[in-house]
C-alpha cells in the first residue's frame, strides 16, 4: 500500500509542471474571454467599405465605451494648415456576434488619443464590460494582452487577441511587444488580472523613434485625468488601486520577468555617439510606388553591453553606421553615471564594436552556459535607447530561442522571436536568470521587415574570439579576393575580371580560369565561392585550385581589405 502511494506521489510530482502550464493557459484564456465579449468595433456612420474603423472597450454595463481619438474618423479635408480629420457625427458600435447600436462621442481627447463614447437607446440593456485595472502598477516585463479589430477581421465574429509584455514605460506611454495593427487602435490593453490598463493608440509609425514598429498605448491613469470633470466620472472611472490578485501562474511568471530587467538592466548602457554634422541614418524601405526607397531612420542613443567591470563595452557594429567617423562617444549607464568612451575597434565580420571607458567598477553580467542553451527556452532582449535620461528599467522584449545557426567559421547566430529594432540592437540577449546569452545584432530589414519575429544575436564565444584584436585597436574586416565572375548556366565559376592589386591578382589568378577548389572545398557555383570568400578575414591565406586550359593549378592567395575598408 505504501509503495503504491509512493508511486502515485512520484507521478503527481512529475506531472506538476505540465499542469502548471495548463493552468497558465486557463488564466490567459479566462482573461481573453472577458476581453473578447467587451471589445467592440466603432465605425463612423457613412464611413466607406474597407475602413476597419476603431476598436473600443465597454467599461460600464450601461453602454459606455473607451476608444481612441480617431473613433468615427471618416476622412480628411484640406484646410489652411493641411489636411484636417473629419469625423462622422453619429457612430455605429458593433458588438462581437454582430449586434449593432447607434452611439455618439461624449468627449474626444487628442492629447491622450482617446474618446469616451455612449451607446444610445440602450435603456434596459446590460452590456458586458471590463473592469478597470491599475496601470500605475505596471512594470517593464508585465504581461499586456490586447484585443481589437486587427485588419477588420472581427467583421464576422470575435476580435483578435494578442499577447506581449510591457517593453517600456516612457513619456507617459506604454510600449508593448504585443501585435498592434490597423483596426487595433482604440482597443483595450489588459494586465495580468484582466483589468483595463490602457487604450491602444497606434503602432509606432515614426521611423526615427526608438519605438518604431512597437505597439503604443495610453495608460489608463493618464487618460483618466482628462475625464475628471465629467458628471459620470466616479461611476465610470472607479479607483482601481489595491485589488488583490485572483490568479497565480501568470503573475508569478511575470514576477520572474520583472526580475530579469532588475538583474540584467544595470549592465545595459546607452552610447551617445557624435558624428560629423549633417550625417544622418537612413534605411531602405518599400516606397508608395512599391519600389525600394531610402528614408530617415532612428538616430538616437544606441544600446551597448558592459562586457567587463574594467570598462570594456560591446555594441553592434551597425550602431556605428557605415564608415562615418565617430567624433566622440559617451556611455550612459542606467545608474545615472556617464563616461567618455573611446572606440577601440570594429569587427565587420562578426558584427560587433568595442568601446573602452575609464572605470573599474562597472556592473556586468553573468554569462549563460552556451552548452546548456535549448531551442524553446525563454529569452529577453534588453536595450537602452534612453541616453542620459534612464527611466529605471531597460527596454525589454520577451520571446523564445527560435533556432541556433552555424553559418560558417566566423558566423554563428542565435535566433529569437523577441521583438528587436534599432533601439535594442547592440543590447543584450539574456535568459530567465538575467545571464548574458549574446549581443543583439540587426536583421536585414529589407528582407525580413520590422518586428517580424526574426532577430539575431552573436554568441559569447564569437565575441570572445573578436576581443583580443579589438583590444589592440585593430579592426577586423572581411577578406577581399578581388574577382569578377561571368555567369554560367552550368554553375561553373569562370573568372571574368581580376581587380589589380587584390588577393586574386597577387596570387596569379587570370581571366578565363575556372575555380574548382577554394580553401579545401570543391566549388559548385559562385554563391558557394562567395560564401567561402566572405567567411575569410583580411590577412588570411587560402589555397585555391583553378583549371586553366588543360591544366589544374594550385595557387596561394593572401586576402586583403576591400576597397572601402
Amino acid at each position: 500500500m505504501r509503495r503504491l502511494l509512493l508511486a502515485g506521489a512520484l507521478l503527481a510530482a512529475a506531472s506538476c509542471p505540465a499542469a502548471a502550464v495548463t493552468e497558465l493557459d486557463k488564466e490567459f484564456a479566462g482573461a481573453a474571454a472577458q476581453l473578447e465579449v467587451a471589445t467592440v468595433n466603432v465605425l463612423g456612420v457613412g464611413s466607406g467599405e474597407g475602413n476597419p474603423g476603431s476598436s473600443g472597450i465597454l467599461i460600464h454595463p450601461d453602454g459606455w465605451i473607451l476608444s481612441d481619438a480617431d473613433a468615427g474618423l471618416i476622412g480628411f479635408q484640406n484646410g489652411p494648415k493641411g489636411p484636417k480629420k473629419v469625423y462622422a457625427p453619429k457612430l455605429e458600435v458593433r458588438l462581437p456576434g454582430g449586434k449593432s447600436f447607434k452611439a455618439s462621442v461624449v468627449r474626444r481627447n487628442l492629447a491622450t488619443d482617446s474618446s469616451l463614447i455612449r451607446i444610445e437607446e440602450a435603456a434596459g440593456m446590460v452590456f458586458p464590460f471590463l473592469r478597470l485595472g491599475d496601470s500605475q502598477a505596471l512594470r517593464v516585463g508585465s504581461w499586456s494582452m490586447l484585443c481589437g479589430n486587427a485588419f477588420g477581421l472581427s467583421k464576422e465574429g470575435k476580435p483578435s487577441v494578442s499577447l506581449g509584455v510591457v517593453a517600456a514605460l516612457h513619456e507617459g506611454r506604454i510600449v508593448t511587444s504585443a501585435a498592434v495593427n490597423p483596426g487595433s487602435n482604440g482597443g483595450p490593453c489588459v494586465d495580468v488580472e484582466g483589468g483595463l490598463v490602457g487604450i491602444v493608440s497606434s503602432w509606432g509609425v515614426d521611423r526615427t523613434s526608438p519605438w518604431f514598429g512597437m505597439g503604443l498605448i495610453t495608460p489608463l491613469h493618464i487618460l483618466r485625468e482628462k475625464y475628471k470633470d465629467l458628471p459620470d466620472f466616479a461611476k465610470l472611472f472607479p479607483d482601481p488601486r489595491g485589488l488583490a490578485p485572483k490568479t497565480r501562474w501568470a503573475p508569478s511568471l511575470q514576477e520572474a520577468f520583472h526580475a530579469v530587467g532588475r538583474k540584467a538592466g544595470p549592465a545595459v548602457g546607452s552610447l551617445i555617439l557624435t558624428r560629423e554634422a549633417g550625417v544622418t541614418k537612413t534605411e531602405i524601405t518599400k516606397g508608395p510606388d512599391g519600389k525600394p526607397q531610402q528614408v530617415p531612420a532612428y538616430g538616437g542613443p544606441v544600446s551597448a553591453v558592459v562586457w567587463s567591470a574594467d570598462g570594456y563595452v560591446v555594441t553592434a557594429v551597425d550602431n556605428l553606421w557605415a564608415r562615418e567617423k565617430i567624433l566622440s562617444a559617451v556611455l550612459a549607464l542606467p545608474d545615472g553615471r556617464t563616461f567618455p568612451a573611446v572606440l577601440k575597434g570594429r569587427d565587420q565580420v562578426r558584427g560587433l564594436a568595442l568601446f573602452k571607458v575609464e572605470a573599474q567598477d562597472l556592473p556586468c553580467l553573468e554569462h549563460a552556459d552556451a552548452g546548456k542553451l535549448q531551442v524553446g527556452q525563454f529569452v529577453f532582449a534588453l536595450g537602452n535607447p534612453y541616453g542620459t535620461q534612464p527611466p529605471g528599467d531597460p527596454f525589454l522584449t520577451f520571446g523564445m530561442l527560435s533556432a541556433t545557426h552555424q553559418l560558417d567559421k566566423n558566423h554563428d547566430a542565435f535566433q529569437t522571436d523577441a521583438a528587436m529594432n534599432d533601439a535594442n540592437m547592440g543590447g543584450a540577449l539574456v535568459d530567465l536568470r538575467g545571464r548574458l546569452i549574446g549581443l543583439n545584432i540587426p536583421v536585414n530589414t529589407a528582407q525580413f521587415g520590422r518586428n517580424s519575429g526574426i532577430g539575431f544575436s552573436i554568441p559569447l564565444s564569437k565575441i570572445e574570439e573578436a576581443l583580443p584584436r579589438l583590444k589592440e585597436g585593430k579592426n577586423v574586416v572581411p577578406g577581399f579576393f578581388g574577382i569578377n565572375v561571368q555567369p554560367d548556366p552550368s554553375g561553373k565559376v569562370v573568372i571574368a575580371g581580376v581587380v589589380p592589386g587584390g588577393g586574386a591578382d597577387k596570387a596569379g589568378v587570370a581571366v578565363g580560369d575556372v575555380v574548382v577548389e577554394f580553401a579545401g572545398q570543391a566549388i559548385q557555383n559562385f554563391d558557394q565561392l562567395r560564401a567561402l570568400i566572405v567567411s575569410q578575414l583580411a590577412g588570411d591565406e587560402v589555397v585555391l585550385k583553378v583549371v586553366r586550359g588543360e591544366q589544374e593549378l594550385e595557387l596561394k592567395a593572401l586576402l586583403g581589405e576591400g576597397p572601402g575598408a
Partner: protein
Amino acid sequence: MRLHRLISWAGILAAATTLAEPPAISPEERILREAESFQEQIVRVVSTVRPSSVTIFNLVKQGNALVARSGGSGVILSTDGHVLTNEHVIKDAAKLEVAMLDGRKVTATVEGHVPEYDIALLQLRDDKGKPLTGLKAAALGNTTGMKSGDWVIATGNPFFLGASGRAVVTLGVVSGLNRIVPGEFFYGNCLQHDAEINPGNSGGPLWDDQGRLVGINGKISSRGGGSVGPSSSGVGFTIPVEQVQNYYKQMLLGAAGGIQPGDLGITVETVRDDKGKEIGAKITEVRAGSPAATGKSPLQVGDVIECVSLKFQSTTIRNATDYTNLLSLWPVGTKLDSIQVRREKALRVLTGFVLAAASKETKEAKK
C-alpha cells in the same frame, strides 16, 4: 549498551532528517524556479515536435538544371513518410526535396491535394523511390477545444532560415477562431494566432502547449514588411487539423486535379430575431442541379438553416459564417444526416443530401 545503540540510531535518523530538508530559498529564487519549470515544459514540447517539422524545397527547371526557386515547411503525419503542407508550397514543382532535423535531405512526391483549400499531402521517399519509414509523426490535437489566449508554438522555415532542416520556433497565443479568409486559397474555420510566421512558414505546423498538432500555417495579414516582401505583423492563419483529417483518406486515394471541396449549392445570409440575435442562415439562392435542389426534399429559397447533422454530430448554425465554416470541413461525397430548417415558421428536418463539387459561382463567391 543496547540503549546506547538505540540512541545513536536515533541520532543518525535525526541527522538524516535534517539533511533531507531542502535549504531555505528566497522568494525570488522560488519564483525563478517556478518560471524555469514552465520553460522546461515548453522546451520539452519544442524538442518533441521539432523532428516532425520539415523544410520543403520546390525545384523548377532552369535550362537543364533543377533549382530551388521557392519552398516552405511541412509536418510529418505518419511514421512512413506522409507529410502535410500547403498547395501553394508545392505548386508547379518539377521536383520536391525535403530537409529534416536529422540532416537528411530526401525527395517527396505528391500523394493527393485539395487545391482550393491549400492542402497537400506528400510522400517522402529514399533514393530508390521507396517510402521512408521510422519517422517521428506529429501527435494530433484539435482546434475545437482551443480558446483565445491559449499558448501556441509554430515551427517552420521562415525566409529559408530553416534550410538545413532545423525548424525555427516561435511562440504566441490564439488570437481568434473560426475565421474565414477568402482569396486565391479559401481558408474556412481557420485559427488566427500571434506566433510570428513569415514567408517560408507556409505548410508548417502549429502546435498546442502540449505539443499536439492543431493545424498548418498558410497565410498572414501584414501591414508592410521589407522592401522585398511581406513579413509577420503578428496575424497568422492556420488551417485546422480537423479539416485535414476529413480530407486525409481521400488524399491518400489520390485524384487527378485534386480533391474537390464539398458543396450543397446554396447561398445563405445571416438572419436575426427582432432583438438582433442571430438565429440562423437564410437561403437566398438554390442553384439548379445542385445537391440542395435535387434531393428527395429539396431546400428552398427562404428556408432558415438552424442545424446541420453529419457523421452523427449536430452543429448549430447561428449565422452564414457558421454554415460556411462547417461546409469547408467536408469533401465531395460526404453524406449529411439531416438539415433542420425553419420554413414559414414550421420546423422541418430534411434528409438525403450528399455534398457535390462546387459550381463555378460558388467558387467565385469564395474569392
